[in-house]
């Protein structure tokens, strides 16, 4: 059998395969370059970037939970200028769409970030982070309310010609309602899900395990919640979805694709297996060959009746 087609298009971002990285789990790419061939990734979503450098939360910032981790990094990052001047030139060496995850404290921050990144060579799209549960201002405050979320998306769309992917939080009553609001405001694609707000207690110290008290739960523990969210939104809306949440294997990725995701992002799995993205790309291809599927497109949403 000839090689199956793995290429997908997410709102104009052309990916040679459906596998990308989840923001905050892959740095700016060079951290994982000793392990993976960055040219083989469908795309890279880089660490959440803010207008000014951000210090982040005090440690401990991470704690393990059953089949998952809770983190509260607090968006530590060197700022958008560092990204453009240092990280982006490195990433431009590769044949790899770069999607920049942007986060702000105010609606104006998002607009300024979108404008700053518009037209910068090597940036293929923006992922708007309105769902980080670990920062006091902004973050989830925008993502939990459809009107605020829509307001952020409108200013971002007004400030850039880049494809805009909006990252949704699962910490809401109805993710479908939120999805509808941001799509109506102009979102070109959705990525889902961000982490689930959670907490753990260190019983010896009788204190919360994280310095920030609460954190975002990721890893295999959240996969069923994420697959459900992708399924619901795919059923309700015609918009490309980047699915994520606990993807460790190619089989996990295929679940998301069959639930309706056009592409998938690998996050926490990178920490366990630095080659997880490569193994997942290989595994998807092998599955297509075994199942005699010539094009990955045939599987997108295939589980819907």
């Amino acid at each position: 059998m000839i090689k199956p087609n793995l290429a997908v298009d997410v709102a104009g971002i052309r990916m040679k395969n459906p596998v990308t990285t989840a923001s905050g789990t892959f740095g700016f790419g060079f951290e994982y370059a000793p392990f993976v061939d960055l040219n083989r990734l469908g795309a890279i979503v880089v660490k959440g970037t803010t207008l000014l450098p951000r210090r982040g939360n005090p440690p401990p910032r991470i704690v393990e939970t059953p089949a998952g981790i809770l983190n509260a990094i607090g968006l530590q990052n060197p700022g958008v200028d560092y990204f453009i001047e240092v990280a982006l030139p490195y990433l431009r060496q590769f044949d790899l769409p770069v999607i920049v995850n942007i986060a702000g404290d105010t609606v104006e921050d998002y607009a300024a970030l979108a404008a700053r990144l518009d037209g910068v060579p090597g940036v293929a799209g923006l992922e708007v982070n309105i769902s980080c549960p670990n920062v006091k201002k902004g973050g989830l405050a925008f993502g939990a309310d459809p009107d605020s979320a829509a307001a952020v998306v409108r200013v971002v769309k007004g400030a850039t010609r880049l494809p805009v992917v909006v990252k949704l939080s699962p910490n809401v009553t109805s993710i479908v309602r939120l999805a509808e609001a941001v799509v109506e405001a102009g979102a070109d694609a959705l990525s889902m899900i961000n982490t689930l707000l959670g907490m753990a207690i260190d019983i010896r110290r009788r204190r919360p395990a994280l310095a920030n008290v609460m954190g975002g739960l990721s890893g295999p523990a959240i996969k069923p919640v994420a697959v459900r969210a992708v399924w619901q939104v795919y059923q309700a809306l015609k918009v490309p979805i980047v699915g994520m949440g606990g993807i460790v294997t190619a089989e996990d990725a295929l679940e998301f694709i069959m639930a309706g995701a056009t592409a998938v992002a690998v996050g926490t799995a990178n920490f366990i297996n630095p080659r997880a993205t490569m193994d997942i790309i290989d595994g998807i291809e092998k599955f297509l060959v075994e199942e005699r599927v010539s094009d990955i497109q045939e599987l997108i949403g295939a589980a819907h009746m």
Partner: protein
Amino acid sequence: MVADIPAGVVQQEQVGPGQYRLTLYAPVIASLAVPGQFVYIRCTDGLDPLLRRPLSIHGVNRERGELFLLYQVVGRGTALLAARRRGERLGVMGPLGRGFTLPEPGRRVILVGGGIGVAPLVFLGQELVHRNNQVCLLVGVRSADQLPVGKKGYTVPFDFAVATDDGSCGHHGSVTDLLEKVLAGEGVDMVYACGPRGMLRQTASLLARYNVPGEFSLEERMGCGVGACLSCVCKTAGKGGEPSQYRRVCVEGPVFPAEQLVWD
């Protein structure tokens, strides 16, 4: 250079209460490792617990391609690791992080280890002796049975002195008492330390008082081990009046100059 390789267990030996010494066949890592670096190791093939465990490198035998790790069972991950036996294979990334800065030959060096914190210091001490430095290791443990060095198979090629909390061996008191006596004497050029935070904090204040440089190996909860996730940070002083900042233990450390660390 880093690798992610399946490393075979050569030997797993219990050396104290909850303390184990693991020998892995990992020739690439053994050939590249320098004192102070660590490996990031999968304790189980399953997904719970999910993360790898960072363990400092206790020693290498480059001829035999062997890597030695000394660790304490503290939770489920290390308990699973302790159950791994000869012939099993573990996923190992390493050597990771930045190691200790080595002094010129002929210098007098003090190593201060609290509990299992002696693990990287033994590797360092061996290297320092090899480079003709004068080395003394000070070890602090709760009780004599928790002493990881000085037992059969654990002789070290340098002097060492012991402090125990319960007085069952050596000085009755803390290892920083021993350090203070040494510093009050003459001619310490450099101090390297690894151990609990309280011990490091006291060591830092002694070094500042006696104006002796030092380097500390830190431990922090880790996610990726390669600098991407920003989980394992520690607070360091800003340069030239700038505010303090968080730096990654996995790539900027685990070894930091003592005077850069902020202890609040």
